[in-house]
């Protein structure tokens, strides 16, 4: 095959079975070894057959290719469950599970059209993550996280941990960086809320996602400023443009701890009369009560969540458009025992060893609590012309965050803090056709305009900011080598409307900088590939770092901004070696991220005296910091039924100027899993049982006297999972799963939980998941 075709094909994502893999047709029972599976592999767009696709049935010797009409057939198969793999050079290999009872028809529609550009994950695969390490959760691994928060789900990936504020609020951390150092791209739009706050969890319904991807390291070129720690891509499935009927799924999850219930449903379909149109409606409800630690309940830790989204789109070969709207609403209780007024309150809780406030199970959410709403409207359109593709994406987000304090009658009506931020984004990307048959790439422009209002307690001032950026990324693939390089320039204008007393004091800031990336992949053999990437990114100081002023409740710290802060610049070097054989896969990633002008809170020698006593005084200052570490993953199919996986995350963060460690860095950890594939038990196919063990070390690398109490001890957690699929009818399937977390009800605290001072972590938690596909 010619290189140019290879390049083009590499870019085309083989994508089939849409949101649900229920194209399978199941026939009557006959216990024999004369079953067959057949089907047609077609290009979803042109509906033309794909010739020469290689199909294999895993763990058998059966291999076939599609004929000139795209047909394939396997016969003389015994009843049972099989994994059907479809490969074609340049395409991503895909697998689908068939529960074969007599015969099955598995028609594969391959999406050749670039609609998946929309699909942020693919953008990543095509651009950012080619030479940069990334990981994703999809299918079964994503299923197993259903009902959990986004951050809880993401920490399944090596190198990703979470920053918690009690049991109900969690934020993802990539290689030790979080909040406004990582970007979340929700359905192609940069998520903009109040990311700077460690107690501000991402306002995203994880049920929207068909795939969650984490791109590790500075990814500024494609995604713009701020992405110096990494990028999280939340991508829904594509709309069902080719389906004539209505289909959907219903997810229910129940957790014993918190007695949390989650229901999420999706309906989608195409329009028979209007070819090329597709629509989807989706919604989620969540209700949880007080969380229990091994020793006591945590008062006021309930959660209510109501989310919905709707999308409609049109697609043809030449052009397409999509409109997406989503709404996220949550009411989060903040653990009552974490409310402190003064440093002496905090010290007495720590000394007590457990919260002063005891509670029973309760669903009521009282103050303190957070009411958060996030609305997103997205419009996307593209047009293809002579091998090029031009796309335009527009987004409008509104985020409202109301934080209620424990205080008097006024607070009942009025939140202590109310943030309202509106963000408008626009991106135009041109993907050009291959140049010199080997070089492909894209150029793009992005813009952002944002304004924020803060009411209540003084914390951050009102502000308005605008961003403009332009980038170019080019890729060159030749034989075993793949190269990519990119460059970007961004400008940011920030206007701050600060009040001194009743007088407006407007401050203007302007920041601008270059970002760059260069990387290569060497596919040494079909077993071994080596990749390396050097990327730079930058992050202008955020408004809280420039202007915040006040006591950070919960942290018992007086924090003060510094308006002369300069942008941070990250220089990120990463190397990755991946070995894949039939039964063993290993991936070792090393990284070194040097951040110049790293902004952090430095303790000052004198405390600040307030009406609530003396508080430790912190100022935002800059230093040069390094984050270096390793991520290791292994997967070993010991026998066809037994599988072992291991994940190791190692991180060391250092303040080069102070010659000391940095605070609040996740501890090193090792995770092991052992899985046994049972196969078909009664009516459950693909059944499995797995046990998991997680060891998290004590964080010993902390500066002396940097905290009210030493980092918590190391801990071990055990978990168990069982699950499988029950086939109901030819179009209906139930996927079930039971999970037990913290099996031995271990009492532990985590260093990256800001409420570690006040309480233990969650105790044992069993959950039951049912997903009904219809």
């Amino acid at each position, binding site marked *: 095959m010619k290189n140019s075709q290879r390049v083009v094909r590499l870019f085309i994502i083989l994508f089939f079975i849409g949101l649900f893999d229920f194209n399978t047709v199941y026939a009557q029972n006959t216990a024999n070894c004369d079953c067959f599976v057949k089907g047609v592999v077609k290009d979803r767009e042109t509906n033309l057959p794909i010739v020469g696709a290689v199909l294999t049935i895993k763990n058998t010797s059966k291999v076939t290719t599609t004929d000139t009409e795209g047909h394939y057939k396997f016969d003389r198969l015994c009843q049972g469950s099989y994994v059907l793999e479809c490969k074609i050079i340049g395409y991503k290999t895909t697998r689908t599970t068939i529960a074969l009872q007599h015969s099955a028809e598995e028609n594969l529609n391959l999406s050749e059209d670039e609609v998946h550009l929309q699909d942020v994950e693919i953008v990543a695969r095509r651009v950012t993550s080619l030479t940069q390490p990334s990981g994703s959760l999809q299918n079964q691994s994503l299923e197993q996280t259903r009902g959990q928060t986004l951050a809880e789900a993401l920490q399944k990936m090596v190198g990703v941990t979470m920053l918690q504020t009690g049991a109900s609020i969690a934020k993802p951390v990539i290689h030790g960086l979080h909040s406004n150092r990582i970007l979340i791209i929700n359905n192609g739009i940069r998520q903009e809320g109040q990311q700077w706050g460690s107690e501000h969890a991402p306002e995203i319904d994880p049920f929207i996602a068909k795939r969650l991807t984490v791109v590790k390291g500075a990814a500024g070129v494609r995604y713009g400023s701020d992405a110096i720690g990494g990028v999280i891509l939340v991508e829904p499935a594509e709309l069902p443009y080719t389906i004539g009927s209505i289909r959907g799924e219903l997810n229910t999850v129940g957790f014993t701890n918190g007695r949390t219930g989650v229901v999420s449903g999706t309906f989608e379909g195409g329009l028979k009369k209007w070819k090329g149109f597709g629509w989807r409606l989706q919604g989620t409800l969540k209700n949880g009560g007080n969380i229990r630690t091994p020793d006591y309940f945590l*008062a*006021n830790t309930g959660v209510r969540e109501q989310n919905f989204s709707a999308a409609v789109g049109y697609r043809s070969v030449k052009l397409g458009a999509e409109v997406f709207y989503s709404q996220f609403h949550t009411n989060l209780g903040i653990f009552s025992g974490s*409310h402190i*007024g*003064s440093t*002496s*309150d905090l010290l007495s809780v720590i000394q007590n060893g457990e919260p*002063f*406030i005891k*509670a029973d199970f*309760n669903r*009521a959410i*009282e*103050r303190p609590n957070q009411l958060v709403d996030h609305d997103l*409207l997205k*419009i996307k359109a593209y*047009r293809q*012309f002579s091998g*090029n593709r*031009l796309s*335009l994406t*527009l987004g*409008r987000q509104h985020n409202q965050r109301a934080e209620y*304090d*424990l*205080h*008097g*009658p*006024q607070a009942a009506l*009025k939140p*202590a803090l109310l943030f309202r931020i*509106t963000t*408008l984004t*626009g991106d*135009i990307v041109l993907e050009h056709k291959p140049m010199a048959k080997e070089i492909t790439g894209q150029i793009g422009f992005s813009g952002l305009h944002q*304004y924020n*209002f*803060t*009411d*209540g*307690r*003084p*914390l951050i*001032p*009102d502000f308005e900011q605008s961003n403009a950026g332009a980038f170019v990324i080019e890729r060159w693939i030749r034989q075993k080598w793949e190269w990519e390089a990119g460059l970007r320039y961004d400008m940011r204008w920030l206007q701050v409307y600060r*009040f001194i*007393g*009743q007088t*407006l004091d407007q401050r203007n800031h302007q920041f601008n900088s270059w970002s760059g990336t260069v990387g290569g992949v060497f596919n040494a053999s079909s077993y071994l590939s080596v990749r390396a990437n050097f990327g730079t990114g930058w992050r202008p100081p955020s408004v809280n770092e420039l202007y915040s*002023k*006040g006591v950070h409740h919960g942290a018992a710290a*007086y924090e*003060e901004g510094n308006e002369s802060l300069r942008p941070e610049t990250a220089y990120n070097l990463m190397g990755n070696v991946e070995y894949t054989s039939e039964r063993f896969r290993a991936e070792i990633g090393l990284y070194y991220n040097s951040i110049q002008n790293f902004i952090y809170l430095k303790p000052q020698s004198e405390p*600040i*005296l*307030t*009406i*609530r*006593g003396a*508080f430790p005084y912190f100022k935002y200052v800059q230093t040069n910091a390094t984050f270096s570490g390793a991520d290791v993953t292994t997967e070993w199919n010991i026998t066809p039924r037994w599988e072992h996986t291991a994940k190791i995350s190692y991180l060391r963060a250092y303040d080069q100027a102070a010659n000391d460690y940095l605070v609040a860095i996740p501890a090193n950890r090792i995770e092991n899993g052992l899985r046994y594939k049972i196969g078909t038990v009664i009516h459950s196919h693909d059944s499995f049982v797995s046990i998991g063990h997680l060891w998290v070390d004590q964080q010993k690398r902390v500066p002396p006297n940097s905290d009210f109490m030493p980092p918590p001890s190391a801990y071990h957690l055990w978990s168990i999972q069982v699950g499988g699929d029950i086939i109901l009818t030819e179009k209906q399937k139930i996927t079930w799963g039971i999970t037990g977390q913290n099996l031995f009800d271990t009492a532990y605290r985590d260093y990256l939980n800001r409420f570690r001072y006040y309480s233990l972590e969650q105790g044992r938690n069993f959950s039951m998941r049912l997903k009904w596909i219809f």
Partner: protein
Amino acid sequence: MKPTHLLLTLTLALTITAVIWSCGTKEAPAPEDENELITTVRLTFTEAGTTTPQKFEWKDLDGDGGNAPTTSRITLKASRSYKVDVEFLDESKTPTDNITDEVREEGDEHLVVLTPTPSSLFTYTASDKDSRNFPIGLSGTVTTGSTNQGTLRVQLRHQPPVNGQPVKNGTVAPGSDDVNITFDVVVAP
């Protein structure tokens, strides 16, 4: 794509952009308005048998941070009895917002605690009660000891119900500090 088509696409794009971007109606920035700021704690001591009040204040008019708070030294006579009234004010507002009434109204979830160090400095007995017959501590009686000097810690404890159950039990432990300040005290002969 023909140039005209490109132009058309861009025009459409810009139109959509303009429509979306103009959806936001903006308001003017306004100064912050803290709900429950307490800037001033005022202790009024009236010696038994007299009508001349002595006022001592702890003040931080610009709230947390900024200018340091100012505080006056409490001077009392040894072995006397004083009627004491505690007031909490927000003097950053015009007119001054008196928080004391609110504390009294919500006596069931507030407790004012006066802690002298050393404890022999004086004793404080609250004279006001909440609906569950626990002290509120906004007014009471101080009986001074012999000549001495030390400090007085004034705490306003906020002890709201947890899950609908009252937690106030007359002791300092439940809840959290709304106020936690210290005065210097001299008990003179």
